[in-house]
């Protein structure tokens, strides 16, 4: 159970949500519409705040937030269910990969421990800031140079193939 202070919700969780939702959309070939992304990120941030406050082991909340992320990306960002699922999974994957090596690195550079960073409101906002900035930078580069992993706008073309699924 993690009760986030409002400063962390506003200045860390919301920008991070904007960044990785954008990343997911860009990497699956969509051009994000900023007002829709902002709305999706807002709803996701609120949902994240609520789920994190639940009495469940930390980490499980990430798996619970995935369906929420799929819904907000598909419906609010307006990219359809398959596109939304693809963008959600790719974006979340990008966030977790970056987090898994940047968070320990930043903590090590700052000389702080994880409990210290988490239980101080402003440290909780500042420590992940470079990570959010990196995520935003990667998203911008992918958008600028039209890099993508898969083209989700072709997702509805069901070609007749020998699929095992």
């Amino acid at each position: 159970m993690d009760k986030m202070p409002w400063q962390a919700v506003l200045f860390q969780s919301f920008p991070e949500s904007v960044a990785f939702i954008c990343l997911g959309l860009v990497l699956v070939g969509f051009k994000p519409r900023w007002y829709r992304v902002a709305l999706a990120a807002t709803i996701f941030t609120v949902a994240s705040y609520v789920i994190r406050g639940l009495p469940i082991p930390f980490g499980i909340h990430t798996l619970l937030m995935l369906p929420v992320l799929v819904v907000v990306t598909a419906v609010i960002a307006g990219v359809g269910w398959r596109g939304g699922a693809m963008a959600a999974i790719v974006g979340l994957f990008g966030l977790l990969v970056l987090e898994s090596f940047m968070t320990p690195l930043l903590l090590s550079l700052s000389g702080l421990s994880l409990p210290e960073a988490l239980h101080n409101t402003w440290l909780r906002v500042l420590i992940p800031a470079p990570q959010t900035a990196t995520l935003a930078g990667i998203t911008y580069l992918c958008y600028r140079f039209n890099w993508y992993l898969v083209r989700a706008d072709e997702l509805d073309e069901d070609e007749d193939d020998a699929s095992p699924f």
Partner: protein
Amino acid sequence: MKKSYQVVVFLILGQAIVLAVINSMIDFYQSGAFPVASPELLQAMGGLFIVFYTLCMALFLRYIFTKVKEEVEYKAQKRYTDNINDLIAAVRSQRHDFINHVQAVYGLIKTGQVEAAREYIEEVYGEVKQAGEVLSLNRPEISALLHAKEGLAAARGAKLQIKVDPGFGRIPVDGADFNRIVGNLVDNALDAVSGLEDDRRGVKVEMLCEGSTYQVRVSNPGPPIPPELRQRIFARGFTTKKGEHQGLGLYAVQSLASRYGGMVGLNSTKECTAFTVTFAAKKARAKTGVS
């Protein structure tokens, strides 16, 4: 994008997300930041992940094998397509040469060489008719094979004569299997005539259709097959050829024919050896569901 690709992407990234979550749970647990999970829960999650991962890998492997099979089929189809294109080019060339042939015949008739004109027309008509019959099969993969075998025969100094009954294209046998049958029989016949004089080096392929019975007959001149060998030649691994031959050709012909309820017959005399594969349409459909 194909559905199968999407599922593969979901599976791979999904596994990575679960792994990342377990990793961060371990980090938080070790740091004591706030209560995460008991070691037993972490172990259980790890175990579940292994099961999930194994299932995903199994599905992914199956996907890869399917794709490899598709790739092989695609390559085979491409070969057929290339051969069909050659056949079409040959027919175009024949049409283009039509005026030349007419002029040649006119010249022969004008100079009183009627017999020569007749022979000339017979030869040209034979080529055109054969190409037309092959094309009229309406089974591109079979037409492609026959055209390829014509080229092979010519390269080996032999002549391949093809006769196709109208309607033979409706034979309820898979194209790839049919090609293996005919391909093996023609290859054997070409080998059999390779030692003969030039004027006898000919192989005949007849595709006959009578009612609901389809017959493929491949015949060639040459010494007869000894009676004591006539059953053994269909055995797996048996060969009379020198060099590296696995002895699988006629075995494959018989196996494939049986798969469609067909029969392989052999008639070998001093004048001619003929292999005949007979399919009854009803049996073939019943055996394989090919319509």
